[in-house]
């Protein structure tokens, strides 16, 4: 993993996990407060119920003539009765503070009025220690949930992060590949030119040097095409097109002459069926890129002693070779930028991408048919 990719992933994870944690903490706190309140309310209900029971018992005691009156008691709930002046009368406990100020963190209190004043009691105070067992259980549950959510969302965040940085990773990989290809593509013709010039300098200028000069010519043409393709790719959306009535037959014949040297080197036989006066409304540079890339591919991927069929009529341009061909999978992706079906030959994988873009701009239909080891036929129907 690249350091920039790692940095992006870490930043994303930090932001994602922090916001998720914040959201979950807030939700958990609201849930905890609400449930705790509910649990305390349930405990408060027990002392309210006990208060009603004691009031009922007080009535019985008030009416009793027994010598001893047993005050109602409860194992978990304490109670005490007070007169109208809030003076303590009796109870199972006696709070040390005044009735009005009674408040405790660990005890629940419930003060209710008694009417009529049985045994003189005007107020009944009931109290119980808060049972923290269900609250602790709730805290454990929430912590467990947060931990589980943390693990799940960390894994999810990592997965999402990898997913988000994937395009960046692909772009960087494509860029690296492009740089490698560019250096290689430039290196081959430049080396050819330099070597052949050196040979001419060493052996002098003779008729036998014609091969060296041809190789220099081909290498220069290759360099020129690389430059043209890269410029086209870079300026595609920015340069002003001059749409004109262009004679495609003349242009195609001209380009065939241009590629003669390359054809001769590979001993490729050409079968031309080019109709004259095929006029298209097209920018000349677009037409050049279209023809040059198709011819260049057909030569580059053709077999030695293969055949190149070029057909031009009023409805289409068809260029077919007898080369290495492509699989169906490669055919579906070959129009993508930097996609190369075969890496044995040089190239950036931009040729068919440029052809595809030109076709798209002019609403041409680009059809490619290929069979491995038999050849490829590219048809542009307008």
């Amino acid at each position, binding site marked *: 993993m690249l350091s920039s990719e790692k940095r992006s992933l870490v930043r994303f994870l930090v932001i994602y996990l922090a916001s998720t944690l914040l959201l979950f903490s807030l939700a958990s706190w609201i849930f905890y407060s609400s449930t705790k309140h509910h649990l305390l309310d349930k405990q408060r209900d027990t002392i309210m119920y006990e208060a009603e029971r004691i009031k009922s018992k007080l009535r019985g005691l*008030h009416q009793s003539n027994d010598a*001893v009156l047993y005050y109602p008691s409860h194992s978990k709930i304490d109670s005490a009765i007070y007169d109208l*002046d809030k003076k303590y009368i009796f109870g199972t406990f006696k709070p040390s503070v005044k009735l009005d100020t009674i408040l405790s963190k660990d005890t629940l209190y419930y003060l209710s009025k008694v009417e*009529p004043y049985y045994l*003189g009691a005007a107020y009944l105070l009931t109290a119980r220690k808060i049972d923290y067992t269900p609250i602790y259980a709730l805290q454990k549950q929430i912590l467990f949930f947060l931990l589980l959510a943390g693990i799940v969302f960390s894994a999810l965040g990592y997965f999402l992060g990898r997913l988000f940085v994937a395009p960046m990773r692909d772009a960087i990989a494509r860029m690296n590949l492009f740089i490698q290809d560019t250096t290689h593509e430039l290196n081959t013709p430049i080396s050819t030119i330099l070597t052949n010039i050196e040979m001419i300098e060493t052996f002098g200028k003779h008729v036998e040097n014609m091969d060296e000069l041809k190789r220099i010519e081909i290498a220069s043409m290759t360099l020129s095409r690389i430059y043209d393709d890269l410029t086209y790719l870079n300026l595609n959306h920015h340069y002003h097109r001059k749409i004109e009535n262009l004679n495609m037959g003349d242009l195609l014949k001209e380009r065939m002459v241009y590629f003669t040297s390359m054809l001769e080197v590979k001993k490729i036989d050409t079968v031309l069926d080019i109709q004259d006066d095929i006029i298209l409304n097209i920018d000349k540079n677009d037409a050049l890129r279209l023809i040059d890339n198709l011819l260049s591919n057909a030569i580059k991927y053709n077999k030695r002693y293969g055949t190149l069929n070029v057909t031009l009529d009023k409805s289409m341009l068809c260029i077919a070779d007898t080369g290495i061909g492509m699989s169906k999978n490669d055919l579906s992706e070959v129009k993508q930028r930097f996609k190369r079906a075969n890496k044995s030959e040089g190239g950036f994988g931009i040729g068919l991408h440029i052809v595809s873009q030109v076709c798209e701009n002019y609403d041409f239909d680009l059809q490619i048919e290929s069979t491995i080891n038999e050849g490829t036929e590219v048809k542009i129907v307008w």
Partner: protein
Amino acid sequence: MVKSVWFVMAVTISIFAQDADLQRDCLSCHQTQQIPNSLIYKRYLMKYSTETAIENAMIKYLQNPKKSESIMPSAFFLKFPMKEALQVPEPVLRQNIRSFIDTFDVKKKLKIKVH
């Protein structure tokens, strides 16, 4: 030591003297007329709650007996005549009322059953 003995004796005599006054001024008559003292006290307790309020309510009624001041329901006076106002000095009356409350105080009977 001698002082303590004298103090205990004085308090005891005082209490007995108070009880004797209550018996003479109030309860003797109540017993003759079969007035249920305990029930009367409980009615006062149920209505007034505090000893001070009970004492004041009793004073008010005993000094000037009226249906509106009585603790008994108005139907009670259809059967029994209204009692006459007591011609007893107020301090003595208060003393007797306190003794009455102390004697019939049900709160003293309250206990907690040990399980």
